[in-house]
């Protein structure tokens, strides 16, 4: 299993729309996944201003790819599937 970086946006829009929960990702990942995740924050991933994509805050990047509308549940699932596939 590779180790991947997960960046959770903690900017205003993302934080209010659920980003605060996403920052607790660590507490919700089980082994062996948790060992393979490096969690980081970002003051603003710059997506909140971009109306072109049909996504909404909160934004997260998982292994370089951007995801919007994240909940803790979908984030855990996404991380697991990315890691499973690696």
């Amino acid at each position, binding site marked *: 299993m590779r180790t991947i970086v997960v960046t959770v946006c*903690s900017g*205003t829009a993302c934080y*209010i729309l659920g980003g605060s929960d996403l920052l607790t990702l660590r507490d919700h990942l089980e082994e062996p996944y948790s060992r393979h995740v490096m969690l*980081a924050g*970002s*003051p*603003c991933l710059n997506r909140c201003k971009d109306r072109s994509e049909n996504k909404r805050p909160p934004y997260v990047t998982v292994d370089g790819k951007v995801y919007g509308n994240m909940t803790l549940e979908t984030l855990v699932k996404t991380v697991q599937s990315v890691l499973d596939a690696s």
Partner: protein
Amino acid sequence: MNNSFIEMDSCQITKGGQRICGDVFLLERVAESGRVVATLSDGMGSGVKANVLANLTAGMGQRFALAGSDMRKNAEAILNTLPVCRERKISYATFTLADIQPDGSTHLVEYDNPLTLWVRGGTCKDPERRAHIMERPGAFREEVLQFSHFSLQPEDRLVICSDGVAQSGMGTKPHPLGWRESGLRDYVEEILSQDARISARDLAKKIAQRAVANDGYQARDDISCVVAYARTPRKLLVATGPPYEASGDAELAQSMAQYPGKRAICGGTTASIISREWNSPVHVNLDERDRSVPPSATLEGADLVTEGMLTLGKTAELLENRWEADIPAKNAAEKLTLLLRESDEVSFVVGTRINEAHHDPTLPFELGIRRTLIDRIRRALELIYLKKTDVTYV
């Protein structure tokens, strides 16, 4: 003396068993000029009666001094107004009045409080005092008012105490006659030799706590200590919001880099701009477990980086409610509050580019606009904490 900031703060500990302090300390800073006028008054006895008398005395001192009339006439007027105690034939309240101009020029009027210490270079000295003797009908002895006029230099301090400090420990083995002025002097010099830059607030606290310790940890009289400290102002720059024109980014980053003081950045976009311009990464502090506001971040060259609206809103609330600091601060708003409170002059640089995200009607919250929040914070800093502030819109 140029450009010194007069930091003045006090620490009071009420006599054991009393709920109201009989010493009253009033302080006023004249916003336009930076002049500071302060009076410490010790009412006879303790409790409510002492408090009322001290309040009356200190209030008169402040009003007269601020009105700017002749110091001697003022002091006489106070003494003539104060009643004389029928049994003890002494005056009901003592006072020390300090009037300090921003250039350091200082007038002191002292009446029956322990003499003020003037500290320079870590050593206590005495200002040259002129005694003025007053005979009041009904008083059993002549009353002595002491006047002095001298100039505070940068890094000078004044230490003003009530006799609860000078007489602390009286009758105990180490201090049979009380701590006295000599004990206080030695202690102040000892503290300054350990920490020459100690704040007025901390020095006043240390002295008061030591006096209570002398009393066996139960104050035997109301204990008050006031410290004035003339020092170079502590400056803080708070940048929040991206400049209206994107071309202003580089300018903002540059003026921040050159700012002669501490720097705080409040806002994700602003942090990204500065990070890009300074070529220095931002790291969000994920170990901050208190989640009432978004976590703070670190960026080399900045003393604090926080999110914008939520943190500023919370900070305004903490300042307005006179939040009592727990150190270490638990979240970004508390960190910002502490940083603001330990600064003397705060300059806000407010960017006016509209952040599209906040105008999304589906966002389930009402964000006060940046301007309103900054206004609230400035008002609290000026009115409650006597700070100087200014704001620039970019």
